[in-house]
């Protein structure tokens, strides 16, 4: 398991509890098993933890943020299942196990992904009062849509085996990683009733952290050990990555600077944001 900060455990446990209620693991149906298979595979739960921490530093209760946190993880898991499909990245391993489509077949995997995606919106609608749930759903819509995950993945697929420019690479990273990082942080703040400026500060944190996270992902694809990362390495060999532009050392340097910038965005929150700072330190230093 990855060496996440110690405080992660309680936050992970809380969101896992919610996720297990949403996606029970004792069902026999293929689609339910497929959904649970990837959802409960070993995971750091970075996004839902980010949602809970954002809510806390904005004065909200982490428990109130849990449905939103769970929704983020559901969307993220759905995106992973879809990304691994043969029609897309065709990745054999995910979270240390065979990828969902390898275990359940392409069709079930696709349905499981849609099931998780559907569940995320439903969770938001069922858990919050109409005004807040509508704003959270709109937030998720932006993160998942053509300007977010879907758009990023599409751009990524079209860029495969092509030489692409830096701006397009950023667009891909922003869509595939940054959008959901941003949504996770902002959703937590929204459940706490934070003002626009607090949300903007957390958004700046998430934006920089999200790109740093993706750059480190690129680095792990080059340097990582599949037994530790839980996924196949050199999968990006056909792709242009951040490392292609900056080299390994440069990518490390920029990832560190992005994490430092993310920390700086938290300055107004004082000590309350220490856990978020630990999260960014983890991202900067992670090797799995």
């Amino acid at each position, binding site marked *: 398991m990855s*060496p*996440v*900060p110690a405080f992660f455990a309680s936050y992970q446990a809380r969101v896992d509890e919610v996720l297990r209620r949403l996606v029970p693991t004792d069902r026999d149906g293929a689609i339910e098993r497929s959904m649970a298979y990837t959802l409960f595979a070993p995971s750091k739960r970075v996004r839902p933890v980010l949602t809970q921490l954002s809510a806390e530093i*904005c*004065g*909200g209760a982490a428990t109130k943020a849990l449905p939103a946190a769970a929704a983020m993880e559901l969307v993220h898991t759905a995106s992973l299942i879809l990304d691994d499909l043969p029609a897309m990245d065709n990745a054999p391993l995910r979270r240390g196990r065979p990828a969902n489509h390898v275990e359940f077949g392409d069709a079930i995997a696709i349905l499981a992904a849609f099931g998780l995606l559907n569940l995320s919106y439903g969770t938001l609608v069922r858990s919050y009062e109409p005004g807040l749930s509508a704003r959270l759903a709109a937030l998720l819509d932006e993160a998942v849509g053509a300007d977010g995950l879907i758009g990023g993945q599409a751009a990524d697929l079209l860029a495969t085996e092509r030489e692409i420019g*830096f*701006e397009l690479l*950023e667009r891909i990273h922003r869509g595939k990683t940054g959008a959901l990082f941003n949504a996770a942080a902002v959703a937590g703040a929204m459940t*706490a*009733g*934070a*003002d626009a*400026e*607090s949300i*903007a*500060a957390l958004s*700046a*944190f998430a*934006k*920089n952290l999200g*790109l740093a996270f993706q750059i480190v992902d690129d680095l792990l694809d080059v340097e990582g050990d599949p037994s530790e990362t839980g996924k196949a390495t050199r999968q990006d060999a056909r792709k242009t990555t951040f490392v292609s*532009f*900056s*080299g390994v*050392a*440069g990518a*490390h*340097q*920029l990832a*560190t*600077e*992005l994490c430092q*910038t*993310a*920390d*700086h*965005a938290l*300055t*107004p*929150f*004082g*000590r*309350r944001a*220490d856990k978020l700072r*630990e999260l960014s*330190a*983890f991202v*900067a*230093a992670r*090797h799995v």
Partner: protein
Amino acid sequence: MEETRPPASDDPRVDELRQRLRSLGYLDAGVDRFVLGSARSTRSASAIAFFASLRVGALAAVLLGPAAAIGLSARMPGLVTGPSDAIVVAIYLGAFFGIAIALSTLLASLLVASFSRRAKMSGRRSLGLAAGVVVTFGCLLYLTLWWQTVIAGVGWSAPFWTLSALALAVAMSLLLGHAVSVASSAVALAASENQTFGAAETRAVKASLSWPVTLASGAVAFGAAALLLTWSAGATRAATVPREPLTIVPSGLRVRVIAVDGFDVRILEELTASGRVPALATAFGDGGIALESAGGTADTDDPARIWTTIATGQPPDVHGVEGLETRRVAGVQGSVAMAGPSPIARAIRGATDLVRLTRPSIASGTERRTKTFWEVAASAGLRTAVVNWWATWPASPEAGIVLSDRATLRLERGGPLDAELSPATLYDTLRQQWTEIRTRAESRATAAIDFNGEEAARTILRRSAELDAVQLELLSRIATPATDLSAVYLPGLDIAQHALLGDEPSRLAPSGLASRLEALKAYYVALDRLVGPLLAPAQDELVVIVTEPGRVSGSRGARVALRGVIARLPDTTASNATSVAPTVLYALGVPMSREFSTGPLIEALDPRFSTRYPLRYVASYGPPSTASATRAGQPLDQEMIDRLRSLGYVR
């Protein structure tokens, strides 16, 4: 968790990528980088307050230092003598305001944090904003008053300048207020740990100003203030240059001004009755005209103050020489008057001297804001010579021949000139003649003194007479061939009187007082012999004898007497000390400045002269020249202080 921090890459691609990331909105935390930049690694409210306050203080130093220097230089013209002085003063004031604002910000932040722990959510932001608003208005108030000072000194009335200055003041005030608000709000947020907060808490913290914007704003404000500073340093003096040329209507007269300090008319009257001072008796045959002080009784206590009043025809609050003792600020060539008998003023002087921020100095011409009568005459094209007048160092090269109050000291000590006299070419000549000058002065002093009393008193009389004789000897050498105007200040009587009687003669025992008074009277006799030849005017000459009672209490007031073909017994027996300069200039045919508060002593002049030469006026003589003669040597500040201390002028 393993922490790995890769070494900084020197790959040029990284720099390029960094720039591209910035253009895409990354690597920008979105908080005020300037105010909170140094607090990024801190967590506690007090630490954030401390680091943010340092930044705000630095901003205040950059903004307010030059602005305050402009105002101060307008108020104290002697302080800033050039660009280097202006920079040093701006740095001092910048440090002062920086520390003051930093402390204020720290205090405000901590207070806001303290209140915010008890305040409701909405109250916290209001407190932070309130701190910013208070600083904004305080700063704007100060800058407006500062601007008023500058206008008073420079005379700007153009709407463009006024609007520009106000816009600058507003920008600076808003910037500082914003910075304080950001700092206070950040501290309030950090202090509200473990408390619920939310709505509108971070509005001020989330910066609208990134560091480049802050830096650019500061740079623009600083640049504008610096330009104003540089401009106003010259403009304060150049702005009121008279537009009308000084056209002389030659009267054919030469004027000789003899200034005698420490003069008591009662002693003169007594000696006149006994026939011991024939020359002075003739000069003051009618008793002369009593001169009231232009600036109150305090004038009589301070020779630099009253003699500058006499020389300029303006009261002290106009001419600017407030007192004999001044302070030189470390690193600044100019000086600032820090006179004042109050214990607080003394304590401040003592404290700043102790930390070597200031050091004692003597009143100089750099503090003077108006022209002396010899400077006016010289600017009108007349040949002038002045010897030993107070506050004439550094000698101006545009004021004829000037042997300043430090000239004797320089001639004694030798070494390169530090503007002790002008023109500089005169220095070599006088240095070569110095031994002869001293010898002649000593012999004239010895011959003049007729006193057989106690040895100590004789020594005092001889020393004083030698001082006067040296000045007279110098005048005779520099005013040959005859100048249109010559003036000499004779300190000997005041020095003798002070040495013999002290500050308060009433404290002396009656027997001692009698013998000391006899010695003093002997000095009047000696003075009569020394100046006698000068008191008799030639056919084309007006002699003006100005006396002042000096430092000994109980003496009667200043007097002026005119001798010469155009002089007559005056209708009045009283006038003002400021009337001497207009009288001298009028006799020379120079038009009067409308800035004079009193006119010439018409009643002491022959009506035919007044009729033939009606009063003419110009708006102003303009400010004195800022140029000084050769300054290659070391200033004789300490030597001057030591000498004046030995003579009882400085304690």
